[in-house]
């Protein structure tokens, strides 16, 4: 999987923002009862959390009761590019999509990549706020 370099503070802050929900990214909640219900996400964290990561065996063990959390992963890369401009993350997703693996195989990889990026973002922001606090503490001393 693509290794992501540490994002800039500006990119990290951006990646953790919400867009307006009406500009959100559509996933499909594929239910055996309700049909394909659209679900629209407005931030990367909840979207990554939603993306399908269960194995086929896990679905089967559950009697296929759990809905398939489906997303068009190419469209996801486009949406992230448009709203977050995180070129490295987008390239990473496109690289995974280009492997042309079945959705259920590639989706956990995309999810994992997004979660790595989000963790990096939290660390960058955390480090930045620690540094700011140290500067502030030093100034006060």
């Amino acid at each position, binding site marked *: 999987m693509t290794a992501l370099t540490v994002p800039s503070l500006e990119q990290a802050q951006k990646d953790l923002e919400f867009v307006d929900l009406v500009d959100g990214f559509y996933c499909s909640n594929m239910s055996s009862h309700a049909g394909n219900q659209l679900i629209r996400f407005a931030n990367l964290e909840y979207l990554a959390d939603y993306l399908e990561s269960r194995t086929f065996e896990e679905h089967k063990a559950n009697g296929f009761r759990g809905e398939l959390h489906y997303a068009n992963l190419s*469209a996801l890369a486009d949406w992230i590019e448009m709203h977050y401009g995180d070129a490295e993350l987008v390239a990473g997703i496109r690289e995974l999509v280009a492997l042309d693996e079945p*959705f259920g195989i590639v989706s956990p990889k995309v999810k994992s990549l997004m979660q790595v990026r989000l963790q990096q973002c939290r660390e960058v922001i955390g480090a930045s706020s620690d540094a700011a606090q140290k500067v502030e503490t030093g100034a006060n001393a």
Partner: protein
Amino acid sequence: MQPGLAEKIILVDLTNNKVELLKTEEFAKWGGGHGIGSALFWKYCTNKKAKGFDPENVITLTAGGFGGTPVPSSGRTEVQGIGPLCWPVEWFTRSNFGGRFSNMLKFAGYQSIAVVGKAKKPVWIDIRDDKIEIRDASSSGDKLWGLDAHATQKAIYKIHGAKDDWRSLGDTRDAGRTTQRPAVVTTGIAGENMVRISGLTHDGGAGAAVGGFGAVFGSKNLKAISVIGTGYVPVADPNALLDTRIDVKNKYGYDPSDYKTFPAVTPNVFAGNPASESSFGLPARPEGCMSCHKSCHGARSTSGKANGSHCLDHTWYAYMVERPLTGKMTPEVSGRVGDLFQQYPLEVYEVSQGLFWIMNLLKKGLVGPGKLVDTDIFEKYKLGTYEFAEEYFKRIAEKREIGALLAEGLARAATKLGRFEEDTASGALFLQEWGSPHHYDGRTEANWGLASILGTRDVVAHDFNWICYYMPTLYKAYGIPMPLTAERMADIIGNKLAPYNDPMLIDYSDEGIYADSMVKLVTWYTGYNNYYKNSLGLCDWAYSDFINPNTPDLVGLTGIAEPAYVKSVFGKDQSFAEGIEEGMKIYQLDRAIWYLQGRTRDQEVYHEYMYKTPAPAEPTGWIMLSEPNTLPAYENGEWVYKTFAGRTIDREKLEDWKTRWYEFQGYDGKTGAPTRKSLEKAGLKEVADELEKAGVLGGAAK
């Protein structure tokens, strides 16, 4: 009197506060449920052009022919009448609910209850065996008016003194005794206020929500119908019936100690077993309808929230806003919203897609104080919270502010705003046909869409849905081969589609969906649903059972069990193919009524987005309704499972298909209207006479 059916039918005239008993015998040839309901409507609705809220509208609640017997999963009640939610015409339509009502009605001695007229003040109907009373539901009487659907039922239990112990329904020594609560079907505040998207609720969440029948109750000043019976349903051959039940359970039902997942498919088909947890991941106990071996309502959860809800009702808010905005899906928010649906009660797809549409209009800057959709709800309440949903529902139920618009149903709301054409073409408003919210995709799963456009509403009949679409789609999504080939699937299913018995019927290829094989498939699908499910009362979540994991050859019970049920309950030797024909006879009567109401061929179409390829700039949601749908197809001389995401409807091919479908039924190929020949062949001469008198009889059939 035919065994299996209760002897009497109740006809209530609310205008004159009068109850009349009819003999079921006159209507017995229609089987039960939908067939009897259509026949009652034909006879007692003297003005077929009446609107849903006109006192002349006749609403029928009819028990299935198998109701009250041990036929597995047969406890459905069919609701029919002129539906105020239907669009663009308030068609004669149907809805349906499970639970205990149909059984109780038959135990009390009645096959159906038909209600006409309008009461002067709020009333409810209290049926206790042979005692039928129209009671005062107003504040000066039993104080039911103004209560939600759950509170209404509790109040009626209290009136009955039902405390789950023995009590007598009469004063005599031999009066019936029971431990049961009455079965109550009721509407809530939304129905009282004649909100077109309001439905009926029975028990926790057995509901008939499509068509606007809650509003029909409201228009008649009818709050609820309660029934309790202590009798039984005589059947032709009780031993054979019990043997059949045991046999199908042993051969085809689930075994909790040896659960085979494929192709049981969730809890839905005959072999599906009950869930042990709710949608919120909490422990839940199974709960089911009377007579059902499955108990698929798995939402009786430890949280106590959304009990009785088991579909989109308790999950839509989670998926629409709670999860996107908070990352969570909780019983405290979305579970309680599920309860609101049952209590008002409201039609979930209308509310769900309505909020989706409103959010699209919000994006265009058309929603807010003083704007096209004049509302302050987004300013005053936080989307994603329970408080938002509670207020949103309240405004709809009270027809207030944004609710006044949405209470009319999405098609009427969009028309009123002058946005119907644009928004159903752009996909901002996903109404597939008849103003019905998109459910399953007619572009890919063709029979679902085609049967819908040939009816009055989203068809909601899962026969081919789970096995032909959902399972292949899941397997394909993981790159895992299906455990049976497309060819074997076509072979098993095709052999069950009497009288056609042709594997080509489930060819969902680009050619197949417009072929003569699809003409036959939609005929079988319509006939099966009109007769075995909606008339005899079999549940859509158990039948058809084409492919079953518990048999050595994976061959399910459909085609084998249904005629055996008919034989043991009714004492009739009726072949499976004859049952399909019965269903098409019932359909033809419905279709005749629609033509009297003004049906034309050009109304039987999809809304515009179904014909269009989305432009790249369109929201991705546009295509997600059909992606990544995978179905069996016959291409280049072989059967394959193929993904049909993004397929659009070809207008010319659809019109040509319709012509062939009409002609296949013996209808007028040009107008789609039933002909004298087709009606008389079905024994409906008087219907042909009526259509002729109205100038709408078809006449050019080959």
